[in-house]
Structures are given as structure tokens and as C-alpha cells.
């Protein structure tokens, strides 16, 4: 039992790494994506719309597999097509290095790309919900465009999007379980291993308790944030 818990704590550490790294990169990356989606530039807007469509329109589990394996297939394709022309072994070795990432990196890339798409749409909703009068008041008072966004618009956007973002963040905790599909030893992976070894479903349910407590903590933190921003309406 102690050994099982030890392995599961290790798995939980990996899950938490995926969770925090995803938030760390996806939350900022979603902002330029949201701007791209609202851009007046037709090409940029269509490009970002396509990105959002693909990311939100296909299963995350499939995206994980794709991002992990696609570069390897791509390398093989290049190698088979061009190894006759380029015989330098050093060249192919460095290309192979460039076109491969380990499982964990692939997981982070896939999660960041996927979650940034959802956050981008949440940001866009928040930004578009700010009344025009706020921009007009800022302009009349002489604020620059960036001052207006950072000091006037963004703080109000954060308050508005917090409940929707909280939903996504809680889903992310549970989605980290998908990382096992390309063999990353996160919490659910560890639980399944332990379950197979001990011929018992108990570890799976213990993992459930772990997820529950992680999300309890996340909910608590997010509720605190909402309360902190509730000083105005």
C-alpha cells in the first residue's frame, strides 16, 4: 500500500507539472490568439480561426498522438526521399535530433496548443463584452492604446472571464490523465500500472480521490480570486 501510494505521488507530480506548465504557456499564448481572431487582417483572422477550429474540433488525445509521432514520420519521409542526395550522416543525425522531442515535451506542446485555443475564445468573449464607452472615456482622457488595454480593459476582462476560465482550468486537471496515451507516467498511468500489478481496481479509485483533492484546491484558489475581484460590479 505504501509503495502504491509512493508511485502514485510520483505520478501526481508529473500530472501537476503538466498542469502548471500548460497554464504557464497557454494563458499568455491565448492573448495573441484572441487578438488574431479579432484582427482586421483577413488572412490572420482566417489563419487563427482555422487553428481554433482544428484544436477545438479534434480530440486532445488524438492531438497528443499526432504531435508526438508526426515529426518522426516526417523525418522518415525526408530520409527516404533524400538520403540518396545528401549522404552526410551528421546532417541526418542533427535533423533527426531537431525533429524529435521526448514524450513529456510532446505532451506540453499538445496541451498548450489545445488549451490556448479554448482560453483564446474565453479572452475574446471577455474583451468583446467590455462596453465601447470604456474605450471612448480612455481615449478622451488621453490614454494611449496600450495604456487603455493594460490599465482599463484587461483588469475588467479578467474579472469577467474568471468563471469561464475556472471551468477550463478544472477540466485541465482531469485532462492531464490523457498524457498516458503516449506513455507519460502521470497519475492515472501510475494507478493503472498499480492496478494491473495488484489485480485490484483500488488504485484507480485512489487516483480518483487524488484528482478530487487537486481540484478542490484549484476551486478554492479560483474562488478566492473571484472574491478578490468582487469589490466592484
Amino acid at each position, binding site marked *: 500500500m505504501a509503495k502504491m501510494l509512493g508511485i502514485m505521488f510520483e505520478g501526481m507530480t508529473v500530472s501537476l507539472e503538466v498542469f502548471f506548465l500548460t497554464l504557464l504557456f497557454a494563458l499568455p499564448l491565448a492573448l495573441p490568439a484572441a487578438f488574431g481572431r479579432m484582427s482586421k487582417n483577413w488572412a490572420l483572422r482566417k489563419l487563427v480561426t482555422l487553428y481554433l477550429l482544428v484544436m477545438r474540433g479534434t480530440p486532445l488525445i488524438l492531438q497528443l498522438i499526432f504531435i508526438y509521432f508526426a515529426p518522426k514520420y516526417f523525418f522518415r519521409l525526408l530520409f527516404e526521399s533524400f538520403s540518396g542526395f545528401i549522404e552526410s550522416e551528421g546532417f541526418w543525425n542533427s535533423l533527426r535530433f531537431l525533429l524529435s522531442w521526448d514524450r513529456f515535451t510532446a505532451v506540453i506542446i499538445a496541451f498548450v496548443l489545445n488549451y490556448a485555443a479554448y482560453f483564446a475564445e474565453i479572452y475574446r468573449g471577455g474583451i468583446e463584452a467590455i*462596453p465601447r*464607452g*470604456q474605450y*471612448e*472615456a480612455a*481615449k*478622451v*482622457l*488621453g*490614454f494611449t492604446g496600450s*495604456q487603455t488595454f493594460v*490599465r*482599463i480593459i484587461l*483588469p*475588467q476582462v479578467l*474579472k469577467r472571464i474568471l468563471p469561464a476560465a475556472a471551468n477550463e482550468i478544472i477540466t485541465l486537471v482531469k485532462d492531464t490523465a490523457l498524457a498516458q496515451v503516449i506513455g507519460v507516467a502521470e497519475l492515472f498511468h501510475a494507478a493503472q500500472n498499480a492496478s494491473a500489478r495488484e489485480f485490484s481496481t483500488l488504485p484507480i479509485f485512489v487516483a480518483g480521490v487524488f484528482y478530487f483533492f487537486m481540484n478542490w484546491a484549484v476551486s478554492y484558489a479560483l474562488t478566492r480570486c473571484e472574491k478578490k475581484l468582487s*469589490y*466592484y*460590479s
Partner: protein
Amino acid sequence: MDTSEVIKIEGLRKSFGSLAVLKDISFSVQRGEVVAVIGPSGSGKSTLLRCVNHLELVEAGSIRISDSVMVKDGVYAHADILRSACLKTGLVFQNFNLFPHFSVLRNITEAQVRVLRRKPAQAKERAMSLLEKMGLVDKAASYPCELSGGQQQRVCIARALALDPEVLFFDEPTSALDPELTGEILKVIRKLAEEKMTMVIVTHEMAFARDVADRALFMDGGRFVEEGGAAELLDNPQQERTKAFLRRFGGQ
């Protein structure tokens, strides 16, 4: 350049799509003058104010604010000149547009500090003296959502005044308020008029316009139909259109 004219507008034209909203508008405002702009809804009064405050772009004509030429024959000045021209005007909105996430005090100090680069202590001092004038010293730490409409509008006026504009525009400042709160705002505007603040007020408060304004402009269909001394124009209009408009108000 005659700088006793704070605002000089010539041949202004503006349309939304195929709808011409301003058709060849010209007028000027002298320093210390209070001008009331009256007229039916959709006559272009608000659009005119928004054009002068650079919230809408004009298609033709010229706008000069004090010594800054904002638009000359439909061509806009460089962004720096536009910004400095805009800082010479203040605008009070119909629906206040206070920043909800800032306290009353910070609503008034933020632009002073960020735009005019005043020291925070100096900005606060200016804000507090304005709040005192508005009778809102005890609300400095409150948030806009905790104030009545009349109080919010007074904060909006203080916010505009804090940047020391040369002219203050009011876009139907009492339209969102009930009669009792309207009185509060009119009192504040009257006080500013006594201090010789240059003001252009778009309003439906005819009695107030007659009382506080030096001059009145009646606007309809994107043109000035009639212009004259406020009391004269409102009591004894010459144009049929003005008479018809004022008759409806007189009935109240």
C-alpha cells in the same frame, strides 16, 4: 490665429454610410462662453460633439481647438498633435463611462498621473479639491457602482476637469438621470459657468439652457437651423422648425 476662439469649426461633414449626419457645420466658441446645442434626437448633436472629441472621423471640414489644428479641410493632423488637441477638451458622457474597477479617487487621478505625468501626491490633491467642489469628498474611496447616477456624473465631470481642459463638452449629461438628480448636475454646471469655464452643452433641458447658456444653437437634420442668444432663441424663435420643436417642450 484668433485664440479668443477656443473652438473653430468650418464646413464639417460626416455621414454614416449613405446617411449624411452632419451637413456643412460651422461654428466657433469664444473663451468663457457657454453654448447650448438643442434639437431633436437624430439631428446630429451628439455626432458633432463626438467629432470634435475625435471619437468619430469627419469627411470634410476643419476643426481647430485653441491653437491646435486637428483637421484641416478633411485632413487629420499627425497623431501627436491630435492627442494634444484632444487633451484641450474634456467630455462628459451621457452614461458616465467611469472606470468601474477604480475607486472614485483613482478615476480622477489615473489620467493625471499616466497622461499628464503629474506626481501622484499632486494628482491626489487636485482630485480631492475637485471632489470637494462636487460635494463628494466622503466618496473618494468608494467605487462607481456604490454611487447614485448623479454622483457618478459629478465624478465624471471631476475626472474631465482634472486634466485642466480649455473647453468642456457635455453630451446630454442629465438624460440618464431622474429630475431630482438632474438638479444636482445642473447646479454643478451652473457653478462652472460662473467660474467662466468654456462649455458646450448638448441638452434637452430647455429651461436650464436658457438660464445658463450665453448662446444657443438649434440643430436639425445635420444643420444649424437657428442660432442666437440663448434666452432670445428659446423665448422668441424665428424659424418655423425651431418654433415647432420648442412648442412641444413648452407644452410640458
